[in-house]
């Protein structure tokens, strides 16, 4: 069968509608850049915005430049990259499991990663605790922590995939499985704590609430090296994720290898989660809430939901971290505590008000 295109104003309407979504992405990007600059400027030492900009462009030197390049910029970029990574992982998990309540945190993948990190710290001696309060935990071997976090995250993911496959995967059921997995891995972490030295306990506890201030430039490089290729893969698969929205049977009949797309999507989402958790600790709800915020605004179309979730996730975590730095200043709260305070009520809201995919 062969069809011919006919001219009509529907095409014009549709491209206007698509331009609206593109406008949303551009707007979110501009907002993100603006917030990055603002976030660098505020803190215990307030640096004027124009000075921030000249420093970032390589202009100025001095104390402000040291604060920006050594402390604020890595922290801010870590918040953006981790937020973007967790949010896109959440968006892809929600899509491939066809389940609106999925996210690294609600499915227990984050807790599994935390457990893996705890194993590396205690049993493999990858971490140590310094007396320095600002940076209480030093990871001596980030690769073994990352690899252990990754293996544990994979274990959780495989369990999730097997259960999702059995087709009894109502959204609520999947979240309950996530609760069970989270409890299991938290129990594992507690078990390790019980047999650990005081220093190691401190290190593990520190891990259970995420803090973007832990990241240095080299951590940031690893984060980016993991998140960017995964994001590229997700973007390449945007049409496949869209066909999954129409149901497995329909996706099959449209030529999509459903199981392949689903397994790859879940594994890569878990990789992102594992690497974020192993560098920054557990940061909850970003992956759940950000895709829903985007979905409310521009709908389910994965062409825009994937990049939109990235941008909004970066914005949400950056704003949360900036607030966490300011709210009890000069004490800097770990952002994981703040996202839990904001995220849990939003999660309840989604459950009660009715979530839509």
């Amino acid at each position: 069968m062969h069809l011919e295109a006919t001219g009509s104003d529907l095409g014009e309407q549709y491209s206007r509608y698509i331009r609206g979504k593109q406008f949303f992405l551009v707007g979110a990007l501009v907002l993100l850049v603006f917030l990055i600059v603002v976030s660098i400027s505020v803190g215990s030492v307030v640096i004027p915005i124009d000075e921030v900009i000249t420093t970032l462009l390589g202009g100025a030197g001095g104390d402000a430049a040291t604060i920006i390049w050594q402390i604020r910029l890595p922290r801010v970029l870590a918040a953006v990259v981790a937020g973007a990574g967790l949010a896109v992982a959440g968006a892809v998990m929600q899509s491939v499991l066809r389940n609106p309540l999925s996210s690294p945190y609600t499915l227990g993948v984050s807790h599994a990663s935390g457990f893996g990190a705890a194993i590396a710290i205690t049993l493999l001696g990858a971490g140590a605790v310094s007396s320095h309060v600002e940076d209480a935990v030093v990871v001596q071997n980030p690769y073994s922590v990352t690899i252990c976090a990754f293996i544990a995250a994979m274990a959780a993911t495989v369990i999730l995939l097997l259960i999702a496959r059995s087709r009894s995967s109502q959204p609520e059921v999947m979240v309950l499985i996530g609760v069970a997995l989270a409890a299991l891995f938290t129990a594992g972490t507690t078990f390790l704590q019980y047999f650990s030295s005081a220093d190691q306990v401190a290190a593990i506890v520190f891990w259970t609430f995420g803090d973007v201030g832990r990241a240095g430039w080299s951590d940031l490089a690893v984060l980016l090296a993991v998140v960017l290729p995964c994001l590229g893969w997700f973007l390449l698969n945007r049409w496949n994720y869209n066909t999954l929205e129409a149901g497995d049977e329909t996706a099959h009949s449209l030529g999509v290898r459903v199981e392949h797309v689903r397994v790859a999507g879940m594994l890569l989402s878990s990789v992102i989660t594992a690497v974020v958790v192993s560098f920054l600790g557990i940061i909850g709800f970003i992956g759940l809430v950000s895709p829903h915020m985007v979905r409310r605004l521009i709908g389910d179309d994965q062409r825009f939901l994937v990049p939109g979730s990235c941008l909004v996730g970066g914005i949400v975590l950056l704003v949360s971290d900036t607030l966490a730095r300011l709210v009890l200043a000069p004490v800097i709260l770990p952002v994981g505590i703040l996202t839990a305070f904001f995220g849990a009520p939003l999660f309840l809201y989604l459950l009660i008000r009715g979530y839509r995919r």
Partner: protein
Amino acid sequence: MNLDIRGIAFSYRSQEVLRDLSFEVRPNEFIAILGPNGVGKTTLLRCLNALLRPTNGAIIVEGRDLLTMSRMEIAREMAYVAQRTEPVRLTAFDAVLLGRRPHMGLSTTPHDLGVTEAIIARLDLSGLALRYIDELSGGELQKVAIARALVQEPQVLLLDEPTSSLDLKNQLELLELVRAVVQEHGISALMTMHDLNLALRFADRFIMMKDGCIHAAGGPEVVTADLVREVYGVKVAVETLRGYRIVLPEA
């Protein structure tokens, strides 16, 4: 396109659903697959689209074995409309555009958009093209699913009970459309159906299934009172009224 179904069988675990089915599909044919619930009609459609792999026999598409073709190759030849369409937060236009997936590279071309537009106009969906499909009625949703299958530009259209959720007017319109597309574009359509009268009105070939086998096949003349009694266990009269063959259950 010619489709030869040669002795296919299918079992779910130990339960045999299809046994030794053979028939051929030619261009311009609109085939109704009839039979009671649970007889394997949907399973047959799924085998034809390689959603399920027959445990025995072969499906030959233009001289090629269906099971040696990639999913994309199959998707370029055949479209499948499932019984249920998921109401998700995609606009009708985007939901129809999904049908271009098998022809698409990395992103949509103006041609993809043009074809989608043309089909939307053809199915009178223009007014709701930019509405989210989770806000559409059952009839509108089914039309969107059919439109998605049509923009796939298939040679064979597989429809699983396309009219089961539609009111009378929508049933007639939809089947009229399928018949017109079959005739205009020289494609074939196979649909499963429970309503014998609707099937008799629109299809030109009939496959009556019983116990996982083909019990009878042919033109409208094979649908007789005896056949319906044998297959469905219901006593009916088959009459001709104003030129239409009508199946009327008897009291």
